[in-house]
Structure formats: structure tokens, C-alpha cells
């Protein structure tokens, strides 16, 4: 009975604490036309302290989305264009000699901010990618002999262009795994595109207002962690992740030769965190299987390694995830 009261209390608390989600969504929708999935993904990443890898052709409001989010949260934002000649020091910062002080002083790089947009991350060489991904993981940067903590909240949204793969440095699997979500965005709908034209022709770009402080996000993250996840849901998540590793045990023998490696334990953690954040966005104090299924594609799509056989048969990771979701029994 006591536990039952806790859940009711938690539900009430979450309903109160998550009230900003609606406001934030309204503000985002004022500026971003369509791209609901992108906005939802940004919110999940923000609330579950995970980073986002975004794949989409140029001009789909990726920069605008994260810029707007930074404005709404009243946080710092920087955009780094990744190029082949970028150096880790350009990103993290370096020590420069000050003639006035006659000593080396620290010059912090653009990573010292709340929201980072790493544009076209696959255009920079591996050492720059590693520097960013290390900072993402450790949440600290060492310049010279001093280690600096990064600001909180710290959210990296890296973009990749699915076309023009020439001269790029594709992210290694181990590094892609560090992104909590990989969101694939598509072109807007006809009506949405019409609306975009109108906004642009009228030069009347709506502006988002600051309604939150970074501290509110940190507080909300703590509440998200408290969202109740039943053992049945945990088992469901484990089953989904295990089905990517041993498909033959889940009557998915056809994928045995097509999956070269399944999802890591980091996928299970990310899936449960993202499901909790999704439940929070839906203003619920507990996770239901719908939450897991809603975030499953974005969490797992970049973590399943497909074999040459799968590529030859045009099998995508999304098809594999769909089949897993349609095969694994829902609790």
C-alpha cells in the first residue's frame, strides 16, 4: 500500500514538474515548423542527459532547433563546423602565451557551453572526433595540466549528412555507441513546407522566449531518474537488446547471419533512460511498454552492426528493430 502511495505521489510530482514540457514544446513549435520527432528527441536527450546524433540532409532546421532550445532554456550555445583541417585544440581550447602577463594562459574552446552543435561531425578526422566524444563521455576537458568541468546541462547534437560520403571520416562503432539517440529526420510535409515559405517571405520569424533556466533542466533530470520502471519493463528491454545479439533465440533465425554484432549494455541503459524521459514527457510517473517502443528505434538503430549479407539483401537496422518489436512478447 505504501509503495502504491509512492507511485501516486510520484505521478502527482511528475505532473507538476513536467508542466514545463508543454510550454517548451509550444515555444519550440513557434519557431520550428513540423519536425516533431526532432523536437521530441531533443527533449529526451536533454532530460535523460544523453547526446544526439542527427542524420538528415542539409536545410532541415537542425541548427535552428538546437539554437531555439538554447534560447528557451536560456543557455549558452555554440556551433562548430567540422572540417578536415579542424584540430582538437580548435574544439577544446589551448594554452597561448600572453605577452602582457608573460605566461601561458588558457584559451577555452567552443565546447565550454551548454549546447553544442557539432555540424557534419564525420568531416573531421578521427582525433577531433575522439576529443569531442571523450568530452561528451567524461564531461570534462584537460588543457595543459588543468582539468575543467564542462557546464551543466551539456548536450551535444552532432549532425551527419547521409549523402556526399566522399572525403568523410565515418564515426567508428565504438564512438557512435556514445550517442544516446540517433535521430533520422526527413523532409517536412507539404503543409509544413508551405508554412515555412510563408514565414520566410514575410520575414516574420517568430522568436522563442526564455522560459527555463539551466537549473530547471538539472532539477527535471533528477525527477526523470525517479520515474518508476517495473521489473517487467526491465525484462522487456533486456529481451529486446538480447534479440539483437542472439536473434535465433527469439525465432528470428533469418537475422542470425545478418547481424554481425548486437547492441551493447550501453544500449540497455540508454533505452531505459530514454523510456523514462519519454514517460516524463507524457507526464507519467511510470514507464509502460509504449514508452520503450517509442524510443527503441532512435536508441538502437546505430548500435546494430549489419553484415555484408544484410546490406546485399537491403536489410536495414530499422527493419531488424521492427521485426524484433513484433516478435518479442510485450509484458
Amino acid at each position, binding site marked *: *500500500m505504501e509503495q502504491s502511495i509512492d507511485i501516486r505521489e510520484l505521478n502527482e510530482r511528475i505532473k507538476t514538474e513536467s508542466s514545463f514540457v508543454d510550454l517548451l514544446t509550444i515555444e519550440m513549435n513557434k519557431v520550428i515548423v513540423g519536425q516533431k520527432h526532432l523536437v521530441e528527441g531533443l527533449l529526451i536527450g536533454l532530460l535523460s542527459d544523453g547526446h544526439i546524433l542527427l542524420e538528415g540532409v542539409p536545410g532541415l532546421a537542425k541548427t535552428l532547433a538546437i539554437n531555439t532550445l538554447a534560447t528557451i532554456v536560456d543557455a549558452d550555445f555554440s556551433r562548430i563546423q567540422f572540417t578536415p583541417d579542424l584540430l582538437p585544440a580548435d574544439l577544446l581550447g589551448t594554452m597561448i602565451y600572453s605577452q602582457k602577463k608573460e605566461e601561458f594562459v588558457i584559451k577555452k574552446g567552443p565546447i565550454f557551453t551548454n549546447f553544442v552543435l557539432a555540424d557534419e561531425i564525420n568531416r573531421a578526422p578521427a582525433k577531433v572526433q575522439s576529443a569531442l566524444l571523450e568530452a561528451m563521455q567524461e564531461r570534462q576537458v584537460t588543457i595543459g595540466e588543468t582539468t575543467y568541468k564542462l557546464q551543466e546541462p551539456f548536450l551535444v547534437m552532432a549532425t551527419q549528412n547521409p549523402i556526399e560520403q566522399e572525403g568523410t571520416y565515418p564515426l567508428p562503432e565504438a564512438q557512435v555507441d556514445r550517442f544516446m539517440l540517433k535521430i533520422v529526420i526527413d523532409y517536412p510535409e507539404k503543409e509544413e513546407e508551405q508554412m515555412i515559405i510563408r514565414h520566410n517571405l514575410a520575414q516574420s520569424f517568430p522568436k522563442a522566449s526564455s522560459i527555463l533556466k539551466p537549473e530547471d533542466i538539472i532539477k527535471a533530470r533528477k525527477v526523470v531518474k525517479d520515474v518508476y520502471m517495473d521489473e517487467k519493463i526491465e525484462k522487456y528491454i533486456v529481451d529486446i537488446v538480447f534479440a539483437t545479439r542472439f536473434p535465433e533465440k527469439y525465432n528470428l533465425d533469418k537475422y542470425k547471419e545478418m547481424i554481425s554484432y548486437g547492441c551493447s549494455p550501453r544500449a540497455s541503459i540508454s533505452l531505459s533512460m530514454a523510456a523514462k524521459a519519454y514517460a516524463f514527457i507524457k507526464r507519467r510517473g511510470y514507464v509502460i511498454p509504449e514508452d520503450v517502443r517509442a524510443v527503441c528505434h532512435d536508441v538502437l538503430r546505430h548500435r546494430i552492426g549489419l553484415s555484408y549479407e544484410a546490406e546485399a539483401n537491403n536489410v536495414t537496422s530499422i527493419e531488424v528493430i521492427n521485426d524484433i518489436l513484433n516478435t518479442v512478447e510485450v509484458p
Partner: protein
Amino acid sequence: MNIKFLYKNSKTGIIVLAMLLLCLFPFTTTNAQNINASATLDSTTILIGGQIDLKLEVSLPNGTMVNFPTFNDTITSNIEIVEKGGIDSLKLDNNRIVLSQIFRITSFDSGLHYIPPIKFEILDGELKKVADTDPLSLMVVNPFKEVDPQKGMFDIKGVQDTPFKLSEILNYIYLFGGIILVIALAIWGFIYFRNRKKGEGSIFIKAKPDEPPHVIALRELDKIKSAKLWENNKVKEFYTSVSNTLRFYIENRYHLPAMEQTSHEILKDIKKNTDIDKPILEQLTQVLELSDLVKFAKFEPLPDEHALSLMNAYFFVDKTKENIIKSLEEEKEALMEKAKDSNN
């Protein structure tokens, strides 16, 4: 020494020397003529890629050393060696020996090919002599049409027509037919004797019809009811069993993958694919939603809600069950079984 003496001393010496020289000349000529080298071909004409034998033969006095010509893969640039035979020897009565070697040759170039004289090295004491064979010629004929790429590609031969002839399989039909018949008889015999042992008598057994989904679901709900789960504080287990029974029923009744769907998806699919009345759907919604709350949110409903959920589950199954029209025979069987049960 004798020659020198004769040359110095008299004219007769000159005559003797001349005589000696005259005697020596016929001897060397004979010696050279005694070694005969020859090369012969089986035929002077072959088709392109065809094979013939080239026989090299040398006849010489017994004890004379001879070196056979050595070829690697080709005789000439156009004539290739397919197979190289060993050197064969044949002793003749007149203190002579005949050595021979056979080469299997071929050519893939059409035209007239010239085989130059083949040389044998003869070692006569310290002297080295050479015996040549006669030159040969080999005509290689191309039977195929000349391919002119300008005229386009065409088959060397047309597609061969091989019409089906019954006589071809008639030879085997009795054999294979017999084997199949024996196997079929063996299988029939095995099944017949096995069933006879079991006392079934017939190899054709009437398959029992699958139980209708509602029968299974109602039986499961009865089990849940009699297990008194919620009365024994097993509320979560109670709702899990009730919702799973309903999901299993929906899966078999409407052929929807309900076991792999969430409650929301099940309700959405049922609304879309069936014409169930709204009040019945509301009853299903009540059970599934309450089950989700109990299963995933530690929710503890009131005892009345447990009873209501079970009642709604029964109601949903009963109202949506499939009407099965039984045949007369099935009706008769059912009545007989009922009568048997009542007698017992």
C-alpha cells in the same frame, strides 16, 4: 711416321699416300651414312586442336653415343607438345641400334606450319657430328567459320533440338516404379502393423478439431477465478493472467499479434479491424488499462475493481466468441459424449 718416310724417299711413296687417302675417303663417307636420322608425322593434316604423333628416329652403329634434341613445350612456335614419350631402343641383327622417341603434338593456329630439320648430336669418339632429319610440314585446318566481329556475334552451332521421347524413360520406368511401389508398401505395412498393435485398426485417424479460442479463454478465466489470486494478495499475478488470457484470445480470435502488442496498439487494431460494439470495447479497455497500471505502476485497485475486471473479461470473451455451426455428425458425437458422462 711411315707416311713421312715414304714422302721423303720416293715417288712410289706419293702413289702409296694417294692410295691410302683413296682408301680412307670411302670409309668416312660410309661412317656418316651409317647414321640415319628421320622425323615422321602420322598425318600431314590435322584439324585445329587435333593431336598427332611426331616420331623421331635415329639408326646408328651399336655403341655410338647420340644426343636427342631437347624440346620444352613446343616444337616450333605454332606446334605444341602435348605428351613426350620416352626414348625407345631396338637392336638390329647387323650390330646396329635404332633409337626412337614419340611426341604427341597439337596446334591451335590454322595454316601450313613448317617443321625445320631436327638435329641429333652424334658423339663418335672425340668427334661431334650432327645428323639432321628432313624438314616436315603440317597443315592445320580450321573447320569453323571465320568470326568477323564487324558482323556481330553468333553461335558457333545452333541450339540442338532434343525432343522428348517416351522410349527414353520406358527403359527405367519399370525399375523406378518398382522401387517406389516397394517403398510405399513398406511404409503402409509399417503404419498398418503399428496401428494394429495399438488397436486403432485404421491408418486414417479423424483429426480432433482445434478448440475454439473462446473455449480456451473461458477455461483459463475459470482457472484464474478458482485460484483466488487477488484474495491471496497476488494482485499483480491476477492482472497479468487476466490480461494475458485476453491477449491470447484476441490473437487467436481476430488473428492480431496481440501478444507482441501494447494495450494501446491492441485497442487501436481491434477498433480498426473489427466491428465490436462500443460498450464491449469499453469493457476490454477497462481490463487492459487497469492491468497496465497494476503491472507497471504498482497500482493497487479496490477489491470491487478486481471482480469487475474479471467479469468484464468473461463478458468480452462471451460477447465476441465465434459462432460455430456444428455438423449433424458432430452434434451426434457431442450428445453421445454427454450421455456417456452422465452415465458415468
